[in-house]
């Protein structure tokens, strides 16, 4: 990833209503850089899901965006509880989100499946009690 453009966002875990700031900002940046709209849409949907997950489960975290001529990489890192069973979490409809989060329209068990669906490659590195790191890769060419 030489000469990558790099943008960093703190995802504020205390304020649920602010969730989405990083993905909205990233969407703007990618627009300015002339990334095709369909790819921007995929990136912002996946990144928003990641942000929401970090707010719901991990008290926030770090979102980083790396852009080169032919790839976009989004990394989402938190020091939350980790994912006990990744395979289970990847199933549509599986959710451990509490009731108050469901009342806000989240917790449908679509977070990780959407992130996978809307990325070219997804890597999850998670350890219970330590945290979760997710990489979302997009090929521009």
């Amino acid at each position, binding site marked *: 990833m030489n000469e990558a453009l790099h943008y960093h966002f703190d995802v504020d875990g205390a304020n649920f209503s602010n969730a989405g700031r990083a993905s909205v900002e990233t969407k703007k940046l990618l627009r300015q850089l002339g990334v095709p709209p369909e790819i921007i*849409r995929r990136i912002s949907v996946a990144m*928003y899901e990641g942000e929401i997950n970090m707010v719901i489960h991990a008290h926030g975290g770090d979102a980083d965006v790396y852009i080169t001529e032919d790839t976009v990489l989004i990394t989402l890192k938190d020091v939350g509880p980790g994912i006990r069973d990744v395979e289970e979490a990847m199933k549509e409809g599986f959710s451990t989100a509490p009731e108050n989060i469901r009342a*806000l*329209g989240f917790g449908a068990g679509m977070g990780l499946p959407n992130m996978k669906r809307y990325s070219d490659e997804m890597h999850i590195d998670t350890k219970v009690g330590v945290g979760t790191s997710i990489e979302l890769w997009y090929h521009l060419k």
Partner: protein
Amino acid sequence: MLTVEKLMDKLELAPIELPDGTRRITGGYAGDLLSWVMGRANEGDAWVTIMTNMNVAAVAQLTDVACVIFAEGVEPDKETVLKARMHGINLLGSPKGIFELCGLISEAMLADEHEERN
């Protein structure tokens, strides 16, 4: 061309925020689970929902829907309205139910297509 304004008139929708009334509507979507909407609503859709919190504004922005229509007479939270104002998102309201609204939107889209063809 079916614009947000035109749909508003046809369906007697109340404007809550209307920063871009000339925006074209190219489809529709109904749903309240935001992740579901994120994954399935398309750019240019009229999105019908009863979810009112400010995450609705974020999802509208990210999916780039043409407008959000609050059904069943629900009113969006203050923060949702503020965020919509800040980011140029059209918000409309109606006392009608989701099912009825979707039927009417679909009808309006078909009528408009028909008009354009003739």
